[in-house]
C-alpha cells in the first residue's frame, strides 16, 4: 500500500518537474512548481521526516511559490520578447551537455552510496539528553549544528539587504510594495480581520512544540509572516517604511542574540556556541524565541520586495 503511494508520488513528482522545466510560459512553470513542492511534502511524510515536510510545505511550496508568482507577474511585460529569442545551436548543445553531466554525476554518487548509509543518528540519540529538548531535529539544529542555523539566519538577513538594494534612490527608506486600494467591505478585509489572531496562535504553537515534536521557529515564523502579509495585502495596515528603527532592530534581534550567547558560551563553556552544563534548554529557548520575530519579519520583507514609495514626511 505504502509502496503504491510512493510510486504514485514519484511519478507525479517527475511529471511535474518535467512540466516546470519544459513549459515556455513563466506563470505556467510557477503553477507547476507549487504543487511540486506540496507533493514533495507528501514524499517527506511517507519517509516519516515530518520536520522536513513541514518546512517544505511552509518555505518550499508556500513562501517560494509566492515569491515566484510575484517574480512571474513582474516579468510578464517582457515575456513575449524573451520568448522570441531563441538561443543558437551551440548554446543549446552546451547547456544540454552540462545538464546531462550534472545529472549523471549526481546519479553516480547516489548509486555508489555505501549500504547502510553513513549516519550520525545513533550519536544524536546518545547525546540528546544533554540538550534538554526531546525533538532530535531541534537538538541538531540548535545544539549539535547550531553554527549552520546561525549562518542560515544571517544569510536571510543578507537576502533582505539585497532586496532593499534594488530600491531606486528616491524611494530609499520608503515603504515597500505598492499601496493597496481595497474597499472596507471587501472579503479580503474580512479574512484579514478573522484569520490573523488564529494564525498567530498557530504560529507560536508550532514554534513552541518544536522542542519535543515536529515544528520549530522556521515553520512558525512562516505562518506568522503570512498573517502579516495578509493584513498588508488587505490594506488594513500599510507596510512600515524600511528606515524605521524598530523594524531594523527586530531584523537583527535573532542573529544578535544568537551570536551574543555563542560568545558567552565561548567564555563559560570553552567554545563558540557551546552551552554550559544544565543551561542548554534555557539557552535554546532564548535563541529560538529571539529568532522567531526576526525570521517572521525577514520573510515578510523578502516577499514584499524593495521600497517602492518614498516616505512622505508627516
Amino acid at each position: 500500500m505504502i509502496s503504491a503511494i510512493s510510486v504514485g508520488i514519484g511519478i507525479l513528482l517527475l511529471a511535474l518537474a518535467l512540466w516546470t522545466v519544459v513549459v515556455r510560459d513563466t506563470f505556467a512553470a510557477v503553477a507547476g512548481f507549487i504543487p511540486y513542492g506540496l507533493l514533495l511534502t507528501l514524499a517527506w511524510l511517507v519517509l516519516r521526516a515530518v520536520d522536513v515536510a513541514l518546512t517544505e510545505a511552509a518555505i518550499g511550496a508556500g513562501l517560494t511559490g509566492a515569491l515566484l508568482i510575484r517574480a512571474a507577474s513582474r516579468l510578464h511585460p517582457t515575456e513575449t520578447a524573451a520568448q522570441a529569442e531563441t538561443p543558437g545551436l551551440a548554446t543549446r548543445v552546451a547547456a544540454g551537455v552540462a545538464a546531462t553531466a550534472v545529472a549523471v554525476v549526481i546519479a553516480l554518487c547516489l548509486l555508489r552510496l555505501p549500504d547502510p548509509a553513513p549516519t550520525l543518528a545513533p550519536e544524536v540519540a546518545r547525546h540528546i539528553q544533554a540538550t534538554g529538548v526531546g525533538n532530535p531535529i531541534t537538538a541538531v539544529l540548535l545544539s549539535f549544528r547550531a553554527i549552520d542555523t546561525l549562518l542560515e539566519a544571517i544569510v536571510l538577513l543578507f537576502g533582505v539587504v539585497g532586496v532593499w538594494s534594488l530600491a531606486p534612490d528616491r524611494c530609499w527608506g520608503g515603504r515597500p510594495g505598492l499601496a493597496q486600494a481595497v474597499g472596507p467591505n471587501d472579503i479580503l478585509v474580512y479574512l484579514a480581520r478573522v484569520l490573523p489572531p488564529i494564525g498567530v496562535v498557530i504560529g507560536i504553537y508550532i514554534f513552541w512544540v518544536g522542542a519535543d515534536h515536529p515544528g520549530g521557529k522556521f515553520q512558525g515564523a512562516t505562518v506568522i509572516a503570512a498573517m502579516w502579509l495578509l493584513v498588508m495585502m488587505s490594506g488594513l495596515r500599510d507596510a512600515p517604511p524600511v528606515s524605521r528603527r524598530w523594524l531594523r532592530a527586530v531584523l537583527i534581534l535573532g542573529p544578535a542574540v544568537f551570536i551574543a550567547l555563542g560568545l558567552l558560551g565561548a567564555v563559560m563553556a570553552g567554545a563558540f556556541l557551546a552551552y554550559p552544563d544544565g543551561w542548554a534548554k534555557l539557552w535554546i529557548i532564548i535563541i529560538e524565541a529571539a529568532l522567531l520575530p526576526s525570521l517572521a519579519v525577514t520573510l515578510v520583507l523578502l516577499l514584499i520586495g524593495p521600497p517602492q514609495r518614498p516616505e512622505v514626511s508627516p
Partner: protein
Amino acid sequence: MKTAADVFTIIAMLAGLFFFVAGTVGLLRFPDTYTRLHALTKADNLGLGMVVVGLLPQAGNIVVALKLIVVWLLVMLTSSDVSQLIARAARRQEKRS
C-alpha cells in the same frame, strides 16, 4: 465497538473521496471559472468534512480530534474566501476584455 467505529470511518472516508473525485471531475469538465470554483468548493468543504468526520473515531484522544475539526473549519474559511477572490478577479478580467 471497534468494528463499528472502523465501518463508520470507511463509509465516511468513501463519501469524502466521492466528493473529491466529483470536485476534480467538475474542475476538469466544467466550462468556465465560476462553475469550476463551484465544483472545487464542494470538494474542499464536504469532501474534507467527510474525511475529517471519518477520522474522528480513529483520533484516539480529544485534542487530536479537536485539531482535526479546527483544520476543517480553517480550510472552509479560507477556501470560501479565496474562491470569492478568484471569481472577482475573473469577472474583472471579463469586463476589461
